[in-house]
């Protein structure tokens, strides 16, 4: 039921006289390239690697790419997912395959796949994860930093339960991830570990390194006073049927002041709704309007839930400020991130996509556009989450 591959650390102890690490290496290739994997192999340079992550545009032959990559990068585990867009060297791109390689010199990793999410007890994943984590931890005790990185089927509807179940098993280890996407088609999202591709599945990597890291989440939205109550829902399908006892789409349109018949992804991106739990807000992003006028969400909903309309601050300025904060006191070697599709759509709508791309490129951010982000035990939307890698302190 699970695939467990363990590489790195134990067989590859850190060499004492290594050059200053560059952190994870990245390569980028067009998804429709005749032989994209060769380009990626060449781009990542000489191994060995502890882990390879592939963010594959839905334009590409996902199964073929993962299989070839697994063969070419062996014995390094290769974890892959489909995307709703990629973040490459130049910021937001589309139709590409982004590869992130973690050199075995600096990293040790193990990855597991969780299959049939909808039919499984999440606690069994946790058991599996604990074992995997402890084994890795024992094998590379000198690598003091660690984090867990999740790729999960973005249409599985199980991200909330998965995140909430896995997080305790990680024992306080920083944990983030992204939901695999399918462009803006919302039809088929896939993940893969090695040559095995799957839907209704997730791949989790536990990564240890002796480089300093920082796992982060960014949320540029602020709640307003505008609220609504979910009066009728189908939580298993993340479908809200009525809001304020009115058909959900129409009432949402009324409250955000839009034409009920013109609701689209851009509207949802521009006018996100959030739930307030305690004094924190979590965006519940709307995926689409069903033909019957209901709203399907990207994350768990329930009846009686109060939705608060959130408004966006300047996403470009906010990103610049947050990434600069990450670069203080020392700029990271690179940043691996899962960025919500809706942010990208919001930026396109606000025509700040170029500025955002520049900011991402300047801060060496790579990753992909998601259908949702996991941060700790939470599955949320409309955020950017990720991990930054820093050079070793000079005194080491």
């Amino acid at each position, binding site marked *: 039921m699970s695939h467990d591959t363990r590489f790195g650390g134990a067989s590859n102890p850190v060499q004492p006289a290594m050059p200053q690490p560059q952190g994870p290496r990245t390569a980028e290739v067009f998804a429709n390239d005749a032989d994209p994997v060769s380009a990626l192999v060449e781009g990542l340079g000489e191994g060995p690697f502890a882990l390879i992550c592939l963010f594959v545009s839905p334009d590409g032959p996902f199964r073929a790419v993962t299989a070839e990559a697994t063969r070419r990068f062996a014995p390094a585990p290769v974890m892959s997912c489909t995307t709703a867009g990629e973040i490459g060297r130049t910021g937001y791109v589309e139709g590409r395959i982004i590869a992130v390689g973690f050199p075995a010199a600096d990293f040790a990793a193990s990855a597991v796949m969780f299959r049939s999410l909808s039919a499984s007890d999440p606690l069994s994943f946790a058991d599996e994860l604990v074992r995997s984590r402890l084994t890795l931890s024992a094998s590379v005790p000198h690598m003091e930093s660690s984090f867990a990185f999740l790729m999960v089927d973005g249409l599985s509807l199980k991200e909330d339960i998965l995140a909430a179940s896995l997080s305790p098993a990680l024992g306080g280890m920083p944990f983030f991830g992204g939901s695999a996407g399918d462009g803006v088609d919302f039809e088929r999202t896939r993940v893969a570990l090695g040559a095995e591709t799957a839907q209704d599945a997730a791949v989790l990597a536990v990564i240890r390194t002796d480089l300093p890291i920082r796992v982060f989440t960014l949320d540029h939205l602020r709640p307003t006073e505008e*609220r609504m109550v979910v009066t009728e829902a189908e939580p298993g399908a993340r479908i809200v049927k009525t809001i304020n*006892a009115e058909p959900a789409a129409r009432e949402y349109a009324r409250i955000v002041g839009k034409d009920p018949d013109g609701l689209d992804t851009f509207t949802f991106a521009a006018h996100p709704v959030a739930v307030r739990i305690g004094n*924190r807000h979590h965006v519940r992003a709307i995926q689409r309007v069903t033909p019957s006028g209901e709203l399907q969400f990207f*994350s*768990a909903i329930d009846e009686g839930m109060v939705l608060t309309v959130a408004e966006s601050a300047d996403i470009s300025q906010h990103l610049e400020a947050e990434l600069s904060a990450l670069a203080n006191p020392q700029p990271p070697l690179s940043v691996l991130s899962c960025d919500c599709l809706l942010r990208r759509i919001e930026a396109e709508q606000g025509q700040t996509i170029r500025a955002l791309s520049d900011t991402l490129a300047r801060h060496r951010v790579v990753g992909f556009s998601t259908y949702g982000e996991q941060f700790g035990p939470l599955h949320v939307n409309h955020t950017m989450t990720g991990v930054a890698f820093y050079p070793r302190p000079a005194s080491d």
Partner: protein
Amino acid sequence: MLVNPNDSLERQNEKLLRITEALMRRVEQKSEESGLAYAQFERASLLEGRVSERTAQLERALDLLQESNARLGQANREAESAQKNLADAIETVAEGFALFDSNERLVLANSRFCRDLYDIKPRLSQGLPFAAYVQAVSESRELSLPSAVTPGDWAARRMSRHGDAHSSFNVELKGDRWLQVSEHRTASGGTVILQTDVTKILRAERREREKLQHGHAQMLRATIDHLTQGVAIFDAQARLAGWNDRLVELFGIALAPSAVGAGFRAVCERISASCRFVDRLTPEALVEWAGSRAGRSSLTFELATEAGRILEAFAQELPDRGFMISVSDVTAERQAARSLQQINELLEKRVEARTLELEDALAAAERANASKSRFVAAASHDLMQPLSAAKLFVSSLRDRVESPPALELAAKAGQALGNVEEIITALLDISRLDASKDVFDVQSVPLRAVFEPLRHQLEPLARQKGLGLHIVASDLVVRSDPGFLRRIVQNLLSNALRYTSTGKVLVGVRRNGGSARIEVWDTGPGIAPEDQRLIFQEFQRLGAASTHAASDGLGLGLAIVERACHGLGHPLSLWSEPGRGSCFSLNVPLCRGPHHLPEARTVCAEPDLTDRAPLVLLVENDPSLARAITIMVEGWGAHVLHAPSGEEALDLLAEVQLRPDALLLDQQLGPGMTGTDLFQLMQRRFGAIPTRLLSADRSRELREACAAMGLEFMGKPIDRERLGRFLAAL
């Protein structure tokens, strides 16, 4: 707005009811199984919130822990570093170092500590008691103990010093190696031991000392051998310690090297065998001197060898109570001294003989000189008497002839006789000046008294030659001999008048500090520089001026001036420029004190007898006194007939057949008649003539005898003024 305000109220109400129902269901957690995902999310979120909070707290706690850990780590590192530094520092010390704590246990020692005692080195572990350390050292095979000192002794002695606050001592190791060990008490009662390897230092020091001693000995030996004296050195026990070859050579005795250590008595006997002690010191006394152990004072004695050498020996105590005898061969010196003494004696004899000869010669010369002076004086006197007589005869003759030619002849004869008289007077002056300085009678002299008579005397001559004669009057009073001063000025004036054909002659006086400068100027031909010295010699004459009197021609005038000035100490100088004239000047010291009274008296006392020119008969057997009186009286213008005795005076008068105007008679006139005898005879023969009896005998008898005869007594030395008044009153 939660509900659309455009709805009917019924609709709004219905919606609110449904909203309320949904919220209530939610609150009551009545979600179906299908709502599990959101519930999970909600719980996770709440949990996450609490976890975050707790995590933050934990992180803070962790930070604090890490901080304190870091401090602890830092402190540990510092402590370790300090300990390491201490160990390193101790290790870098070049000496062996060990520290014992206050419980006398070894705390630490560096690798150099006891390095050379390698057999006990392994036992020096931490915690070793001090006593055990000392015992171990004392038993070390490497330790070199002085003979008769057991390890136990050494350890006991070592321990006895352990109590000291600071101690330092040297320890000898096998193989001539040395350790200097210094021990110090620390403030906390511990003990620090420092071991320094001083082997090199000690060895170098020893080498240096040996070198120095050897060098000194060599130098001393070379010095002794180099001496020209024979040297023998004896130690404090008066045993022969050394000698040089010269000593052997001087004494002519052989000293084998084995003689070192021989007693002084034996040495002395050997010397006595070949030498004789010359002076009082006996060999026995010398042996006794050598035998006294200390405080010997230096001895000098002489020896005579059989070969005839004289040796001088000098014995002196040395600082180490030994003594040294140095012997010099003084044979040559003694011989030289003897020769020198002989020569000296010979020379002394010769000097004595020569001195006698010279004394004879001197006496002869003096006699000759005196006889010359006497001869000149006598000759002059002898000439003078007949000359005076001749003048008197001529004078008588002029009274008796009447024919003009005869009168002219008589006048010329009188003039010629006058000239001869002047020459003879000049010669007399010179002979007097040459004979002695006693001739001067220095007193206060008003210059007026000198100049005025000269003016009267010389003005006619100047007028005759058509020359102007100016004598500037002066009130100055000088210290000089009046007669000679007058003669000096007179001669200078005469000389000036003689050589000056036209123009004038001037006499002036100017004050010149403490003296009066008398200057005699003329407008004569001047004197060439090369002749200026010459003119002061006798019988020198410049230019041809033979028209003058014969006495002029003899040129005695300036010779007299020069001698008189020299004798009186009146510096004489001459300025002259040929063709323009000359100036003779002399400096005469001014008389100090008031002059007015003496001046007045002196003026009276200097009578001018020129006009009457009385004839004075002087009978005086002392030639110099007679000369003095003659010059003085003649200076006043009188004529003097002098006879040394009464008999000769009577003969002279009989010869010239003149009756003197005055008589000056000395009482003691040698073997013949006395002054008073002569006076009575003269009274009988010539009647009453003013007379003074001159005598140094101021006895009452003589005075009374004179008074009885009506003869006035004048005591010697003669009062010039009184004599002047007597003659002036004639």
